[in-house]
């Protein structure tokens, strides 16, 4: 039986558990998703979208799937702090794909903002969720999205009502922490109504040394004039594979910025889809990844300019060492009506070894005639002349390399608005470049000997 077939069977078997406590519209959405999945299955290498990342390979091992929240006998936030000094955040934890609530599962702030479990939001505010859920992430577009839509039970839900501002950034820590190889699906939904602003920082970590495969979907609705900033730090161990699917829908004059810093992990594939749905919307999509050993990082970006007068700016940088492989695929689609589009894309990569490999594929499809678009990609090694120049001033070669790599990475880090977070990322990138983040037994985190959840 093929891997895809196994998931179809599993779905049939577990459907009643998945449906439990969900509003009825979810049943239809899940079934549609499974139907789509049964038609296409997991995308294979023949699929243009997954040409450089073999999903077959990472889905090959046997994973268990957890259908209920983990029970832990400790406070996760006590043993695990993913702290950013000098930054007050509202910490939210997603443990093994489920919202980890300390008391309330869905908090209503004074100004009407809701933050908490998506499953709980589905129960308490089904109409609000229904308006946006699975509206931006289409199961038809990608087997991974279909699989997530069928299986995901929980995740983070944020709702910012019209005119409101989320004062403290929300920091979401996604933690796989089980005692066996596990496939995780979680689903986030962030709804920002008109004239709102919010900031979310996502940290992907692992706390136990098993093999993990996370397939997440995050949907973001940015209403008219909404401002949203979404930063991610991906730092997992080598046996942890991460597939993220981010869908951003932007309305008139909204501004959304995403910044993905990939420090460590096994195979990581980040799909970012931005729909600029109304005039004046602006999108910034940035990414920095540092890979070595046999890590694989693939960033896929699709910006859909569906309306006039929108702007988008992509900057992705990648440093690959040893046998690491990477890919960048950036698509800009300018639809016929999207006049006065301004769209830029840059991808720069540094290969530190002869074995490291990078595939870069810019893709511009322009159907309007009054637009300003550019793209550029470079892949190369560190400039030997510059290295020698620094050595000739007494700077040791390894330090010179560090200065140059750091300078290379800096351009992306600079895009992070929150100063304390920027400093923290600076620090992490510096440590990563010096090899200090990945010392503990093939693991990037200092796990210690934690008792595993049941």
């Amino acid at each position, binding site marked *: 039986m093929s891997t895809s077939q196994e998931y179809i069977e599993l779905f049939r078997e577990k459907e009643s558990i998945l449906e439990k406590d969900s509003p009825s519209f979810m049943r239809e959405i899940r079934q549609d998703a499974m139907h789509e999945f049964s038609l296409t299955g997991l995308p294979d290498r023949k699929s243009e979208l997954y040409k450089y990342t073999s999903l077959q390979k990472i889905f090959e091992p046997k994973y268990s799937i957890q259908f209920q929240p983990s029970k832990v006998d400790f406070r996760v936030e006590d043993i695990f702090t993913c702290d950013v000094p000098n930054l007050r955040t509202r910490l939210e934890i997603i443990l093994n794909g489920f919202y980890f609530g300390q008391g309330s599962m869905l908090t209503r702030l004074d100004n009407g903002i809701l933050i908490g479990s998506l499953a709980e939001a589905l129960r308490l505010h089904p109409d609000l969720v229904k308006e946006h859920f699975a509206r931006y992430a289409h199961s038809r577009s990608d087997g991974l999205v279909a699989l997530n839509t069928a299986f995901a039970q929980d995740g983070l839900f944020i709702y910012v009502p019209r005119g409101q501002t989320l004062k403290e950034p929300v920091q979401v820590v996604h933690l796989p922490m089980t005692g066996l190889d596990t496939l995780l699906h979680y689903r986030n939904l962030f709804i920002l109504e008109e004239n709102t602003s919010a900031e979310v920082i996502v940290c992907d970590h692992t706390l136990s040394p098993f093999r993990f495969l996370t397939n997440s979907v995050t949907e973001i609705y940015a209403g008219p004039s909404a401002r949203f900033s979404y930063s991610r730090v991906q730092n997992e161990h080598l046996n942890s594979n991460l597939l993220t699917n981010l869908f951003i829908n932007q309305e008139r004059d909204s501004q959304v910025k995403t910044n993905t810093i990939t420090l460590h992990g096994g195979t990581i594939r980040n799909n970012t889809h931005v729909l600029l749905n109304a005039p004046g919307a602006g999108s910034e999509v940035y990414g920095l990844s540092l890979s070595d050993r046999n890590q694989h990082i693939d960033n896929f970006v699709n910006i859909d300019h569906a309306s006039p007068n929108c702007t988008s700016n992509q900057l992705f940088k990648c440093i690959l060492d040893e046998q690491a492989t990477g890919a960048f695929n950036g698509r800009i689609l300018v639809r016929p009506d999207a006049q006065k589009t301004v769209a830029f894309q840059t991808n720069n990569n540094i290969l530190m070894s002869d074995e490291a490999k990078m595939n870069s594929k810019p893709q511009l499809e322009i159907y309007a005639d009054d637009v300003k678009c550019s793209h550029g990609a470079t892949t190369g090694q560190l400039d030997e*002349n510059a290295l*020698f*120049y620094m*050595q*000739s001033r007494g700077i*040791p*070669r390894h330090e010179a390399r560090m*200065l140059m790599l*750091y300078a290379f990475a800096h351009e992306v880090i600079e895009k992070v608005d929150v100063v304390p977070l920027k400093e923290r990322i600076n620090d992490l990138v510096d440590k990563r470049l010096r090899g200090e983040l990945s010392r503990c037994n093939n693991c990037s985190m200092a796990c210690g000997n934690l008792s595993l959840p049941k």
Partner: protein
Amino acid sequence: MLSIKDLRVAIGGKEILFGINLEVKAGEVHAIMGPNGSGKSTLALALAGRDLIDVIHGSVKYMGENLLEMDPEERAKKGIFLGFQYPVEIPGVSMVNFMKTAVNEQRIYQGKEPLSAGDFLKYMREKKELVEFDSQLTNRSVNEGFSGGEKKKNEIFQMALLEPKLAILDETDSGLDIDALKIVAKGVNAMKNKDKATIVITHYQRLLDYIVPDQVHVLFQGRIVKSSGRELALELEEKGYDWIKAEANGHTP
């Protein structure tokens, strides 16, 4: 201080220098002149330790030690400075960070405490005045967007910060207007003392009006074909290189 004996080097299998002999003593200024393509820059880069340059024969002693065995950074820390003919732009690496790292590497090597950020900035300000270096430039990335003259002045500024024992200036004068030339010369002269030596590589006698050499050498086709006092530079200015070429090829003019 520096003793080069029968140095032969090649780049990519092609021999460029065919046996260089040169003695530089502390306190001296040597000028190396010669037509384009004669191997002047190759000699400078070989002394600084560029790995593209293969030493195939000969020896170089610096302060009694075998220079050729040292990494470029070790040479620098021991007091050798190369002023580049074509200074390299390093986007993203700030001048301050670059030179602070360099100065502190040297201080650590000499057993001194590294300078704090504040002390380094103070030190940098002093040196900036010495070489009349535009204070805005230190806020930028190394050489990025600098004009030709600014790049050359930056070399002298870096030299002033590192206070080398042996400075090798590779055509630091080319592309400079007369005012900038005077500033460069002033920087070099300010550092001159009995413990230090300078090798000035130049095409033109002009710089030697300001930096007075003890000896002038003419490098031609990978060999030093003539060495003399500073009057040689004047003669070259007047007559060009043709007579040297003819002499070197065994003809009398």
